[in-house]
């Protein structure tokens, strides 16, 4: 095995693992803001209890997120020195912006968010909670921006192996940046509400604090009304952008070999087994709607979708991985929309009333199983995006093989094994301690923050 392959696997493992945590911590921080505002507005204790309960999981998530995120910042240099030395003049700036504008803000105000309940006024605490959530989301913006620039590298001129001039507006607002950010941000929200509702469904099935968790379940369903369909729309936009800026990637994602001739539509494959040597698919199951691929990727049933044969063999990336990961992601995305609709229907029928929660076991079971859906869909989307970009590390400018550091295979193998072992351990730890938090259940008794007593006395 060569250090290039091992470094790619290592980067994939470390990114895929890291991503799990911000997905949840960005979404949960947003949830905390909603809960804290609801509490301060209504003075209904249940919102405060919820905020404290979910913040326990948030803290754990954030800790693992920080620890695993630090890895990535250094990995660009340790494993991808070729890439880093060429584009650092722009790419490194963006990572620096993330640190100074977002991560610093989030991690500093976290101290007040976690430890400040009895130290600061409710106003200062709310502002801190908002800043934590804002910092977390801003962090996602800069990271997605840097990654989007690798996908659609505009505005940066590279001469003699380093950045020579930069048009910051063009580079920061590169074609993928905005849509990609919103796509991942909504993914954070969606992942979190399905996570939260999975846990709520678990409690409701166990008939433990059912009324308490029904509350958050309904809040999440309301958020899902917006999040799940918007995500489908953002996904569609992203797909069309890929077609526009990375036609070779799109062809690989669709396992599409021959460009459709003018006036005809390209057929969308539900299942395909590509044969690289024969430059065709050895097996396909097509969608029954003619011209569906053209429609999905261009918006018109006769739109032209370039086939893989239009690109030289060395510019074609892997096919099977992005082809299936995209389809699975889309499938899960639609399941999430249907689960939202199902919950709404049940709500209107009155089935979400506390006295009815002991019925409709299947409804709650399926929502319980939906707990990891967001994580899985996002990981699949990430695989589509990153594998789809291959063989490029910076699309059209630098091949992945040119970005590598000067390393020995043993070196990378050792750290790769260490990362896998560490991450398995961290994952198990997270599950074990989250289960412990869930077993203990929400704390409904400990005193409210001190200031609530004072306001009561005054009133």
């Amino acid at each position, binding site marked *: 095995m060569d250090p290039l392959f091992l470094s790619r696997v290592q980067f994939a493992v470390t990114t895929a693992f890291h991503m799990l945590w911000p997905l949840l911590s960005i979404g949960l921080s947003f949830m905390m803001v909603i809960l804290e505002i609801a509490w301060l507005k209504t003075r209904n204790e249940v919102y405060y209890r919820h905020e404290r309960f979910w913040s326990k999981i948030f803290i754990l998530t954030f800790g*693992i997120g920080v*620890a695993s995120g630090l*890895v990535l*910042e250094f990995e660009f240099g340790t494993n991808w020195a070729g890439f880093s*030395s060429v584009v650092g*003049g722009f790419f*490194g700036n963006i990572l*620096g912006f993330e*640190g100074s504008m977002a991560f610093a803000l989030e991690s500093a105000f976290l101290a007040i968010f976690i430890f400040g309940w009895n130290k600061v006024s409710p106003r200062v605490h709310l502002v801190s909670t908002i800043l934590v959530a804002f910092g977390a989301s801003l962090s996602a913006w800069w990271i997605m921006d840097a990654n989007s620039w690798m996908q659609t590298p505009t505005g940066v001129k590279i001469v003699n192996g380093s950045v020579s001039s930069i048009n910051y507006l063009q580079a920061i607002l590169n074609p993928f940046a905005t849509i990609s950010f919103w796509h991942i941000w909504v993914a954070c929200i969606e992942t979190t509400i399905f996570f939260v509702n999975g846990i709520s469904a678990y409690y409701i099935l166990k008939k433990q604090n059912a009324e308490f968790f029904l509350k958050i379940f309904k809040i999440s369903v309301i958020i899902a009304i917006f999040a799940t369909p918007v995500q489908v729309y953002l996904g569609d936009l992203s797909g069309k952008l890929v077609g526009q800026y990375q036609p070779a990637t799109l062809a690989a994602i669709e396992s599409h070999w021959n460009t459709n001739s003018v006036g005809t539509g390209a057929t969308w494959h539900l299942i395909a087994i590509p044969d690289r040597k024969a430059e065709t698919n050895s097996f396909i199951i097509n969608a029954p709607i003619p011209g569906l691929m053209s429609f999905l990727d261009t918006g018109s049933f006769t739109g032209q979708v370039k086939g893989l044969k239009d690109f030289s063999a060395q510019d074609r990336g892997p096919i099977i991985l992005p082809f299936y990961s995209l389809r699975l992601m889309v499938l899960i995305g639609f399941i999430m929309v249907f689960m939202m609709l199902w919950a709404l229907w049940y709500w209107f029928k009155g089935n979400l009333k506390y006295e009815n929660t002991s019925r409709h076991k299947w409804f709650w079971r399926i929502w319980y199983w939906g707990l990891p859906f967001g994580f899985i869909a996002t990981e699949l989307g990430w695989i589509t995006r990153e594998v789809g970009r291959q063989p490029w590390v910076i699309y059209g400018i630098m091949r992945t093989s040119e970005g590598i550091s000067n390393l020995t295979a043993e070196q990378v193998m050792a750290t790769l094994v260490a990362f896998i072992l560490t991450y398995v351990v961290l994952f198990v730890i997270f599950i074990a301690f989250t289960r412990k938090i869930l077993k203990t259940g929400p704390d409904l008794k400990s005193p409210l923050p001190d200031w609530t007593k004072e306001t009561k006395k005054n009133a």
Partner: protein
Amino acid sequence: MHEFLANLWFLILAFELGLYAILDGMDLGIGVWTLFDKDENRISTEITLIGPFWDANETWLVMAGGILFGAFPAVYAIGANALYIPIMILIFGLIFRAVAIEVRDHSKNKRLWDVIFGLGSLAAIFGQGFAIGGLFGGIKIGPHGFAGSPWDFLTPISFVLSFGFLFGYMMMGAAYVAMKTDGQIQRKNYSRTIASAILSTILTVTALISLHFLNLPEMKFWFSRPDEYILTVLYLFATFPIVMVILNAYKKKNDKLPYFWTLVLVVDAFVAGVVEIFPYIVPPNIKAVDVASPNESLIAMLIGIGIFIPIIIAYNMYIKKYFRGKVSKAGKYGEY
């Protein structure tokens, strides 16, 4: 203009790293001391002290990484490539430290997480020492970037620096705990402050003498340049704060003074380090200006990072205001 911007970023980078060493160094030092503790309550108190701040303190390392990457991409790339092993030691150390802090409170087996917390801190310190030592020892560069072996960082200098970081961080950690606690735990940490101050002194003196006599090729750089005079002054000055640290920790009258003097000492040592290499970023022959990004990039970083540095310092100080005073009893994580 370009040289000014490049040197400015070199100094901002040094400032960030210095701040990191002071803030998180203290956390790591406390971590190492917990390895010598058996009393669960004492360890809980110590972890409660750093609980709210360790991640904000780690931010400075993240930002320093971003600055190095953005302002001096070739140094970041070649440096991280050459120092693969120390950087990975640092990363794994920080991972386990972070997880131990977060998980310990939920766990029944506190002892296990104490050990992981301590060893993680220790690994992070040695990772830093070996990385800086490897950089100071010189990096072999060929036409395609790094051209040395992955073990090049193992030099006498990197061992000296690693132990220097270790003792310095331990001194800061102990002095900080002494300042923020009272009773038996405070007395214990006064003694620890003195012990680490003495160890630092012994290390520095023996290292300076032996490195001088070893006459390693990479050391010629240090002893043959005009700022040797400034260095001599800084080294001699260091004896003053170290005496003050020991004296104040021994007298136990003012609990803030030992910590104050450890800071003076660390700053002095850090300034000495910066003077030693400035304006070279990879000694002995790559200057900051030779490898800096173009001006527009350095200016964009001033806007996107530079002006945020005072703001970050300001809000961190604002937050610390709420955590003034002593931690008397070992609270649960989440209750300062």
